[in-house]
């Protein structure tokens, strides 16, 4: 029983870690979408600068748009991948088992 509990605990920790990662990605995705929205509102000849380290580099509006879009696609793909991985490893059956143990642990604390 103790072993099962520790295994479940490990699983739960993994799940929590996954959630952290997912949260981070979600926040980044949100920010990038905001940037894209603002970039779309800019006129063609507006100056866009990118802060790389201590340097402000002038960028082309079209280039900036493309970069931000690519980043958005990348982040959403990552998000999906992490989510799928979590679903696979912690499949429903196992998840249920985990939940029972989690509650057990919770009640033991």
């Amino acid at each position, binding site marked *: 029983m103790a072993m099962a509990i520790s295994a479940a605990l490990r699983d739960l920790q993994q799940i929590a870690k996954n959630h952290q990662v997912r949260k981070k990605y979600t926040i980044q995705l949100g920010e*990038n979408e905001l940037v894209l929205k*603002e970039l779309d509102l800019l006129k063609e000849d507006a100056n*866009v600068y990118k802060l790389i380290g201590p340097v*402000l580099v002038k960028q082309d509006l079209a280039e900036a748009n493309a970069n931000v879009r690519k980043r958005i696609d990348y982040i959403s793909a990552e998000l999906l991948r992490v989510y799928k991985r979590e679903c696979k490893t912690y499949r*429903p059956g196992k998840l249920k088992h985990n939940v029972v143990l*989690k509650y057990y642990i919770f009640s033991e604390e």
Partner: protein
Amino acid sequence: MAKGTVTPMAGMFSVEEAQRAAQKMQELISEEEKRLQQLKDFIADNNSLINLVRKLPDELHHDIMVPFGKAAFFPGRLIHTNEFLVLLGEGYHAERTAKQTIDILKRRGKALESNYNALKMEVQNHKFEASKFDDMAAEVAEGLVEITEEYVEENSAEAASVSDTPGFSEANNMKVVSDSDDDFSRIMSRMDELEREELAAESNVECFDGEEIGNDSNYQHSLDAKNLEVMEPPQWPKEKNAITEALSRKSHEAEGVTDWLTMQLGALKGGPAPKGATLPGKAVQHNAAEFNHKEKALLLPEVKEGVSPVPRPKKEVGVPASKSETSNRESFTGSIVEHTSHVGTNAFTGSVVEHPSNVGTNVKERATSSSQAFTGSIVEHSHNLGTDGRVEATSSSQAHCWTSMSNTGIHSDDEEMAYYWTGE
């Protein structure tokens, strides 16, 4: 006769559990409130920034003290007062005029506001849940008892609330009724009278007199045995006297009662036999008894089957208090079933506890509302809620409570977990 089990609520959820759950909710709430405060600060900063940006282009150049390094300033000039490099996010800056900058800032402010409002609603919900947990913990601490019976109309729940668990004898019932809450029992009896009047108006008076007397005064009878016998009618005469005044006073209630009756009759006709119905609050039992009696008077053969089905499966685990008690009610009569579909209070009414001082007021204020008055009267907690809308919200959150209890151990809100937990 009365056969039932008395389960101390402390046995169902231990005191520590309830308290711990309440505590975790509190922690969650405090965290959320910190975040809420942070958002508020952001919004304030944004607004002051908008004001500044608005004022800058008023001059061609401003004379300012320019910060230099960590600890120095030197006098300087702020030129190009209409050109702003605005951070869009992810390291991207855009050159914009003051007006355009203000537009950007306003859009950001709107997004912040919507976040803030959403979080505020969340906090409110959690606060609500926490209060429910607190109430539950208090109940358990008081040593309240949940009484379950096999489809017998009882109102011995009151006895339980006093932390004794006498047997379910009729005498006990009567005693409990008279002992525990004078106000409440008086009001209930008036309501009973009213209902009786209604029924009398609709149906034969004979049935009314013959079979209802004892039933009304004593709330026990076994439907299975088709036993309409009367118990002691000590209260009967007193009730009868009060009928007229009760009637005149509660005409509004009578209307609701009539509606109820029709509903129940309809439900009864189709209701299959109940199994092991359990039974919660006194008032409900009382009312259920009333209805049962009336219906019996009207449809004797059907009454046997009249015990309403228990539509919802009883779950002992997970949502013990609320759900099992909901099913209690349903098993009672068709009327209760109908009721439960309307009222979310079932989740609460399971709590047998009645703080006498509150109950009286509850009943009074509920008496004026619609048919919900009957089950509503048992809900002592509801007076905290205030509105019916909130009550209904609670029922769903009550079911949710247990899932969140299991989840508060880890702050990851895994929907699947929640799902599987309630499936347990």
